[in-house]
C-alpha cells in the first residue's frame, strides 16, 4: 500500500490516492485534500464531509449520493453544485474514505 506525504505527515493511501486509514484523517488534512482537487471548502461543504465521516463510522461504508440525499438531507443537485462532476468520489476523497461501493 503506498504512503504519501501531505502536511508533512505520512498518509496511507490506495493506488489512486484515497486514504485507507480512517484515523489518519482530521479536518486540517481534509482541507488539504480539498485543495489538491481544487475544491474551495465552505461550511456547507464541511457539513457534508462531517456527515460522510459519521455515517462511515456507523455503517462501515462510504455513503453514495443517494444516501447523502436520503439520510444526509442534501439533494443530489446540490451535491453536484458543491462537488462538480463526480460528487460521490470527491466527497469520499476529501473525507478520507474509500470510494463508495454502492450502485445507487
Amino acid at each position, binding site marked *: *500500500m*503506498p*504512503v*504519501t*506525504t*501531505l502536511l508533512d505527515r505520512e498518509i*496511507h*493511501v490506495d*493506488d*489512486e*490516492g*484515497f486514504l485507507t486509514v480512517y484515523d489518519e484523517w482530521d479536518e486540517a488534512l481534509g482541507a488539504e485534500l480539498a485543495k*489538491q*482537487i*481544487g475544491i474551495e471548502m465552505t461550511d456547507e461543504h464541511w457539513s457534508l464531509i462531517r456527515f460522510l465521516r459519521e455515517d462511515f463510522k456507523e455503517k462501515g461504508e462510504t455513503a453514495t*449520493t*443517494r*444516501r447523502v*440525499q*436520503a439520510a444526509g438531507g442534501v*439533494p*443530489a*443537485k446540490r451535491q*453536484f453544485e458543491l462537488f*462538480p*462532476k*463526480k*460528487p*460521490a*468520489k*470527491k466527497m469520499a*476523497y476529501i473525507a478520507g474514505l474509500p470510494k463508495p461501493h*454502492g*450502485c*445507487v
Partner: protein
Amino acid sequence: MPAKNNAPIVPNFGDDEETGRKLAIICSKGNLDMAYPGLILANAALGEGVETHLFFTFWGFDMIAKKRMNDLKFSPTGNTAMHMPIGDVRVPQALAPMPGMQAVATKMLKKQIADLGVPEIPDFLDQIVGAGGHLWACRMSADMNKYTETDLRDDVEGIISASDFIEMTDGAQLLFI
C-alpha cells in the same frame, strides 16, 4: 517496503479532460423490474460526469406518465428466473398467472429494492434530473396513448420523434432496455 513518493498521490477526477462522453438510454419497458436498470445506469453515469439522456418509449412511457408512474408492477409470469426469497425454490410457471401472484411479487420486489436504499421510480427520476440528467418522451408513444406534455412529468424536456432523438444523440453511446 511500502512505496514512498514526494509528490502527493492524488486521484485524477478528470476535471481537466473534456471527454465529451455522452450516454443515451432508451427505456422501452414498463415492468417494475425492467424500469430499474436504465435508471441505475443513468444515475451511475451522471455520477461519473457523463452527459446522460433517457428516452422513454412504448411501455417505458409508464415511468414518466403521471397517472401510471407510481403503479408499476412486477409479474413472475414468463420469468423463469423468479425464485422464492427462501430456499431458492423456483416459482412454477403454472402458478405464476394465479390471481394475487402479481401483487405479492410486486410487493416483495419493492421491499427488496427499498431495503437496499434504492428509491421508487418517480423519486429516482427526481434524483436523476437533479444530477443533470435529461428526460425525453417518444412522439409515437405519446400519440398512441393520446398523451400531451401535461400528462407527463413536468421535467420531461420534450416529446420528440425518433429522428430528433437520433440527431440529438450524435456521438453518444446507446443502450436499449
